[in-house]
């Protein structure tokens, strides 16, 4: 009886990590700060999830690690700049509807641009390096550099300001805790995308094929599915998501520079490692965990803040070397 209990505990323990941290933080920082920071952490987690989810699926399905993923984030952020420029009438108007509409346009444009670039990228670069991890790492790093430099060529080397739309500046109050209005929008967008992904993965045929493919690519092919074609679709979806993440992040920072993708990349890798390569659900939980850790650490131990997630990753790896929710049997 106790062995079964232990097994159950082992199986459900990873799910407990996030709630435990959230609960532990409460006494450490007081309710007001806790509410603000938790929401902030969840929001950051959502934006990170947008960027990381594509990467984990791409890796899970085809074992391709794309270091240039950061470039798609950057492209998304800069496309946002170009889209919101002409829409300045909508963003400065005191109308929530127009503001949100402008953001929606930017979101779609960022997704489209990054997705299109992803299509080209898969054709030209990724196709050459399936099955060769060394080459993948090298060529995608090279491509990252090139794309970032091209971004500078098109948009210039300086950082560009991206002020938030009029009605989305400032904060609302939950009790006595201030919550930035924009954060609520980002939270909503993130959850909506996550929900859509979940629906597609669980309710559609293509989602079924993807989930099966992440577990056993060969078997899916033996069942007659052309996994290569599926992969191209996933790759494009992944890069489009990265673009969306870049848009939301750039707007959130109110500043966009050509290294915006790089700064996210290390956090994204940490999320992938903590969550388990290939697991979208794991990625979701890990993203939230990382977002929360960043925000809590900034408040509780500012000097450690930047390194807090790396420490978190080290701790998780010591406990579960393959991440919290690895695909495949132990």
């Amino acid at each position: 009886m106790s062995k079964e209990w232990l097994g159950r505990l082992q199986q459900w323990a990873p799910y407990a990590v996030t709630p435990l941290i959230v609960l532990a933080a409460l006494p450490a920082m007081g309710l007001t700060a806790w509410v603000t920071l938790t929401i902030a952490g969840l929001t950051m987690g959502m934006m990170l999830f947008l960027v990381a989810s594509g990467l984990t699926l791409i890796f899970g399905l085809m074992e391709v690690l794309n270091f240039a993923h950061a470039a798609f984030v950057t492209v998304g952020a800069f496309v946002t700049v170009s889209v919101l420029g002409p829409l300045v009438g909508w963003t400065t108007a005191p109308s929530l509807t127009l503001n949100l509409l402008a953001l929606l346009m930017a979101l779609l444009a960022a997704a489209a641009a990054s997705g299109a670039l992803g299509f080209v990228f898969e054709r030209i670069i990724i196709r050459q390096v399936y099955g060769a991890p060394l080459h993948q790492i090298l060529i995608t790093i090279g491509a990252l550099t090139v794309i970032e430099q091209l971004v500078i060529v098109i948009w210039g080397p300086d950082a560009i300001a991206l002020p938030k739309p009029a009605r989305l500046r400032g904060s609302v109050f939950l009790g006595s805790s201030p919550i930035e209005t924009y954060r609520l929008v980002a939270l909503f967008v993130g959850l909506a995308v996550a929900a859509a992904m979940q629906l597609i993965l669980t309710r559609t045929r293509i989602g079924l094929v993807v989930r099966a493919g992440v577990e056993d690519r060969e078997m899916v092919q033996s069942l007659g599915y052309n996994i290569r074609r599926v992969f191209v679709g996933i790759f494009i979806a992944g890069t489009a998501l990265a673009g969306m993440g870049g848009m939301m992040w750039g707007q959130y920072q109110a500043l966009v520079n050509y290294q915006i993708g790089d700064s996210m990349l290390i956090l994204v890798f940490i999320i992938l490692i903590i969550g388990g390569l290939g697991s979208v659900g794991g990625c979701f939980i890990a993203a939230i965990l990382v977002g929360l850790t960043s925000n809590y650490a900034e408040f509780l131990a500012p000097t450690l803040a930047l390194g807090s997630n790396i420490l978190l990753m080290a701790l998780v790896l010591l406990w579960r070397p393959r991440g919290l929710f690895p695909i495949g049997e132990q």
Partner: protein
Amino acid sequence: MAGQPHKIPEQPSEQATIALAPAVSSSKPYQSGKLRRASWLSWIVSDDPPGRFLLNAILLLLLAAFVFAPFLFPGTKALGVASRICIFVILVASYDLMLGYTGIVSFAHTMFFGIGAYGVAIALTQGWVGWGAVILGAAAGAGVSLVLAAAIGILSLRLRAIFFAMITLAVASFAQILAEQWRSLTGGEDGLTFSVPAILKPSFRLFADPVLGVTINGPVITYYLIFIVSLVLFLLMLRIVNSPFGRVLQAIRENEFRVEAMGYQVVAYRTMISALSAVMAALAGTLMALLLGYNGPDATLSFSLMIDILMMVVIGGMGTIYGAVIGSILVILAEYYLRNVLGAVNGAVSGTPFLSALFHPDRWLLWLGVLFVLIVTFFPQGLFGWLRQRR
């Protein structure tokens, strides 16, 4: 494959067969009569000369250029460039030990570079002076690097290549953050400035009168110190890769399952080479600190430096050690002088805004990146590897 519980060996596709330079042992260059007679020369390069006549000549020419650099290229800037090249040759060659010979991708190399530099910088700013401090700092840096590399190796080298790469990235990132935050020890983001030993200072004069038109001052002596140490370390690395130990490493790169089956502990070998590589990087860092009289996170720990190293080792030629020489020279010269070339082109296309932005001097990294991608795709053995194979 993500999650497959069974173990079916992969049937290598053409793409998976990485066309690195052939293992040194299988491409013993033709040994001319002249070389046999000068067997001490052979011994120095551990029976692994660059190639046949053309390559040997090129490398010898480069060697001569370095030996007489202060006289051939007078001026502090040129000497600084030459010093930097020597240091990077060691930094890149030590990276090639892991990447080209054993097949390990690590992003922590700059971390060890930084540790070596900080070793000297901290020693000289914490009160010790002179050569004693330098030796102490160098030893400390090398020691810490050795231990750290061994620890990372033992803990993570069992993992898949991509996992390991990502973890080294995280560790290096952490080191960078640590250096930036620990002001009391490392000077934080501003770094540490310190006094180098007297003999290396610009004001020092070895001889009162100029030799062959060049004053032998501190920078010149610094250069020769760096050059000689680099040369020794370089030859040492040649020896390592041509030893039985080195052959096992190459075998691991080719087919680690087979090597494991033959009874070798692959993880042990990988850990040893990582540690060795880290120590070399630390020593290169020590030299860098002496060159600059300064060390900070931007000087030795940045990710862009890591990318530079990758570019140099790939463009030069993985798995050859000599490739590090070619790669370092090319990339560093490009960093300094490609701007001029681009500036000239820029002048020619100044009409079109897009083209002039494309060829702007500051965009040298773009063109280097394009070159990098092209070489990885079409010449994975790098320039040196390709030249060597043409015989």
